[in-house]
């Protein structure tokens, strides 16, 4: 059966890059906001990598990026569920496979020849980062509206707990981005795929798998 579905349909690519831009705004403005009242005395983010001259500018960016991130994220989740993309690409995740492939990945021995199929490490990272971003929105709402949404604050013990969780979420997302971007650069076909759409889903299945000494994003 001839399918016309490509790996990353236009909608996915638009949402991916919108999310990337919004995420960069959120992270860099968040660092500036953090600098005004640090959680850890040893950690201040250098002025060169923050967004906003003063805290008020950083807050302005943060509360603009918030809308783009949340609306785009909701559209992405809706699309992912309704189109079957999540079910097809992210599930099932086999724990046995995950352990085996994680070990292989750490030895740089994990093959990634078929772009249309995610291995267990990729699946868990993608699902994981989606959950972290969702949690980040929850802790963000708790910090923004600690009275109106006081029940959200209690999820994190108290207001400072919510700030700490928001910081931890940021750290997890930044680590994900570092791994994600490094691997996309190591396997440029994947980066190209997120720009042009990538291989057709059926065509790639028929292509003979040729081993390539690459890892996966």
């Amino acid at each position, binding site marked *: 059966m001839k399918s016309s579905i490509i790996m990353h349909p236009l909608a996915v690519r638009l949402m991916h890059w919108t999310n990337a831009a919004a995420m960069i705004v959120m992270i860099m403005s968040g660092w500036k906001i953090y600098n005004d009242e640090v959680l850890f005395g040893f950690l201040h983010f250098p*002025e060169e990598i923050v967004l906003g001259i*003063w805290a008020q*500018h950083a807050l302005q960016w943060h509360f603009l990026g918030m809308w783009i991130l949340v609306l785009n994220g909701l559209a992405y989740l809706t699309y992912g569920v309704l189109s079957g993309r999540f079910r097809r690409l992210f599930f099932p995740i086999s724990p046995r496979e995950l352990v085996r492939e994680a070990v292989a990945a750490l030895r740089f021995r994990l093959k990634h020849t078929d772009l249309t199929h995610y291995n267990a490490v990729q699946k868990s990272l993608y699902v994981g980062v989606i959950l972290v971003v969702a949690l980040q929105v929850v802790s963000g709402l708790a910090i923004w*509206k600690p009275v109106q949404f006081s029940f959200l604050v209690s999820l994190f013990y108290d207001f400072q707990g919510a700030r700490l969780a928001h910081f931890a979420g940021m750290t997890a997302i930044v680590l994900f981005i570092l791994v994600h971007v490094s691997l996309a650069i190591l396997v440029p076909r994947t980066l190209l795929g997120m720009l042009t759409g990538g291989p057709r889903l059926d065509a790639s299945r028929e292509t003979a798998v040729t081993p390539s000494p690459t890892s996966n994003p």
Partner: protein
Amino acid sequence: MPLRRPFTSLFRPQRGPDQTVLTEHRELIETIGRRKLLRGTLSLGALTMLTGCNISDRDAVQTVLRAVSGFNDGVQALLFDPNKLAPTYTASQVVKPPRFNAYYEIEDLKPVDIGGWKLELSGLIADKRPWSLERIYALPEQEEIIKHICVEGWDYIGQWSGPNLRDFLTRVGADLTAKYVVFHGNDDYMESIDMPSALHPQTILATKYAGEPITDPFGFPLRLRTAVKLGFKNPKWIRAIEVTNSYSPGFWEKQGFNWFSGL
């Protein structure tokens, strides 16, 4: 061929400018656009290199960011539940003394000269007679042990008491349907809050902290304490209260902070 139709409006000239000028210089005009675009792109690129990412105070950027901040004011007003109470705490959790904060250091504090102090009232208020501190102390007191949350991210638990603002506004015959309550501080600090937040049960005109009159650094003789706003929306050293329908940004909003800043 005319480049555009002549205007017919009363406020416009009957005919457009001499079209030959446009025709003769058509080529130049077209290249200007392209050149400007190129130059604009280059300077935008150079700008990001020179200043990192700090393009935030550019007029065009500020216009967009402040418009979004204004939109967020509206969203927050919708999210605000006038009956939702902020969490309260026990007397043993109270921090003494409270944390000092102002737009200057504590050494530069100019205490209120209580001899000449009176609380002035203006705007949409029926009884505008000024209030002496004795009369304010004589009003029924409400005590609340609530969290002070600063826009910077820190917080502490404080024990505040003084007349309830809704009761006070009712007593002086303020128009409770007006949009804003404005507080003028002794150090030229001004802040305005929305009427629903002013009427919230946990909004008081605080005269005491932990049972004692508020000391100079923390707003003596009178300050606002509301459990539903960030710290900077709680002006200290209040000398005048105004009820109005016209919006005026406070000290920090003029610097770019969000006006509603509700918790």
